[in-house]
């Protein structure tokens, strides 16, 4: 009969009305400015710049490659390269941004800058209380306002940050290993050259042994320079042992 459903509905809302006074757990809302919902891992609002270590400017991962600037659909990123370079986490000299601005009134939070960044330098933030009293100035965030530490990133995106940290630690280890290997190869080559000059007995055998590291040499062009600066490395390391035995 028409009307029964209406009465059922009225009873339901009536129960909600009375129940909300006696059972606080019925209330589905939270009192916002005082209380916050627990953050959600995948939540994203605007981008921020990640830095390692203590000093936000020294540890900044951004290399001012401007890929994000190019890819940004609403063109809210503005980057100016600095003339001075600084070493990155692997010790390589990289460019750094002099100016890095994001207009968050333009940003649409798509996260494409994060996708394209090769340096894991730009990430999506979870802050949302971004309102300001100034229509233009307050919405244009500068580099100093954008930087946030890697630890913060670990807090808001634990899983992703752990992966990235592991990958980067791996990179460092590999780079170190490679640097060592290169240094050793250098040392070895130098030693071989010295022994060749001293006594050309085992020249053929030795040169055939060193041919393998020798061929890899052109791939890592900047390496020798770095290696040469750090030449005083201890010579006895594992890969060089078999060639050193004869």
């Amino acid at each position, binding site marked *: *009969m*028409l*009307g029964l459903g*209406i009465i059922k*509905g*009225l009873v*339901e*809302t*009536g129960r*909600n*009305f009375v*129940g*909300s*006074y006696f059972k606080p757990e*019925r*209330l*589905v*809302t939270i*009192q916002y400015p005082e209380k916050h919902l627990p953050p959600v891992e995948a939540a994203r609002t605007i981008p921020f710049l990640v830095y390692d270590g203590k000093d936000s400017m020294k540890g900044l991962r951004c290399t001012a490659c401007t890929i994000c600037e190019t890819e940004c659909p609403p063109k809210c990123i503005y980057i100016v390269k600095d003339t001075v370079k600084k070493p990155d986490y692997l010790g390589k000299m990289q460019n750094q941004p002099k100016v890095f601005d994001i207009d968050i009134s333009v940003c649409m939070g798509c996260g494409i800058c994060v996708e394209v960044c090769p340096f894991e330098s730009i990430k999506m933030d979870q802050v949302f209380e971004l309102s300001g009293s100034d229509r233009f100035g307050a919405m244009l965030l500068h580099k100093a306002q954008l930087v946030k530490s890697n630890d913060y990133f670990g807090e808001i995106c634990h899983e992703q940050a752990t992966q990235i940290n592991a990958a980067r630690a791996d990179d460092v280890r590999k780079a170190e290993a490679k640097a060592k290997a290169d240094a050793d190869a250098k040392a070895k080559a130098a030693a071989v050259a010295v022994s060749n000059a001293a006594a050309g007995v085992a020249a053929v055998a030795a040169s055939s042994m060193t041919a393998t590291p020798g061929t890899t040499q052109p791939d890592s062009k900047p390496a020798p320079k770095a290696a040469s600066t750090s030449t005083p490395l201890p010579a006895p390391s594992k890969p060089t042992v078999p060639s050193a035995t004869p």
Partner: protein
Amino acid sequence: MIDSLDQIFVSLKHWLVGLTPEAWQPLVSILVSIVPIMALFGTCFAATTIFERKILGRAQNRLGPNRVRAFGVKTFGLLQPIADGIKMLTKEDIVPFAADKVVHFLAPVVLTTPAWMLFSVIPLGRNMAAIDLDAGILFFFAVGSASELAVFMAGWSSKNKYSLVGSMRAIAQMISYEVPLVLSTIPVLMLAGTLSPSQVVEAQGVGTGFFAHWFVFTPWGLSGFVVFLIAATAESNRSPFDLPEAESEIIAGFLTEYSGFKYALFFLGEYIGLFAVAGMAVTLFLGGWQAPCKALEFIPSYLWFFGKFAVLIVFFIWVRATLPRLRLDQLLALAWRFLVPLALINLVVAALWHFMGSWQFIAAMPVRWGICAMLVVLPFVWFARLLNGGKVAPRKYRYAE
């Protein structure tokens, strides 16, 4: 003692009018009637906005507004209307460039003024109608119909498609529901034999018996009351009939281009219209200021009126918290295929009730009740079934493949 408490406002008015020079007394008398009504229902409006939001919140397991503080003192949100008022009054009044400026300005005025005039005929207590018009109920519906024009003016002058669609919906809805609204009052007028609201209330008095003869306690009265309530909800554009301002479809309907004080006036006008219709429902069906039984007559008449009025307003809010919005075709079908036939049948039932009142034989009363109740319930069920296309079953939803 009881009588003097009951008539305290009437004697106060007489005293006040008596203080003034005699030549000015007609004007002062008018003013003394108008000012309290406007103050009272203005306060009712403020209170309703906050309690409506509170009740809606609680019905949806929320808290509702609870934050407004005055000088650092928590008020549990009770000062929200004041905050809203300040916000509305200080907002920029935006008039669209293409709008018809004069009509755009006049529309809220044309809506609000007649809405206030509606209260002049409603008896708020014993001897407490501002003007005791001979044709008061006709006045009520005549002046109430002026709001259609205001809605049209608002929608058309905004030069906005949403506004126009909203106002056209509103007018179609108001015209359709005015028919059952008026038809459902006709049985009351027939049996009370008058068009004057005061006399309609008198006719529902306790009289010699123990219980009051409120019209809602008769089969035709109950049916008429239900039809009147549904039509009144639609007439005041309230949920579930809030299609004219369906925010998910047409932004805010005819209110889209209104802001600031003009918007506040529209808001006020809608609530005032709702109050007036609720007051008329109380007057016509719930016995106006009459107490339900002899023993309760010591409570002053105006308290009875406002008690019933408050119950109706809370019911309107409760319905709003419960029911989803209708579709336009459902809305019109409900009016023309359900409410109008019911109201027409109700006329016949009321006439039968009247003539069967003179039956003298034993068990005349139950027979009278039985016949009339059957004549009310059977058409109700039948038309309800017709409205659903003859079958009553949960709706099957078909999704796009």
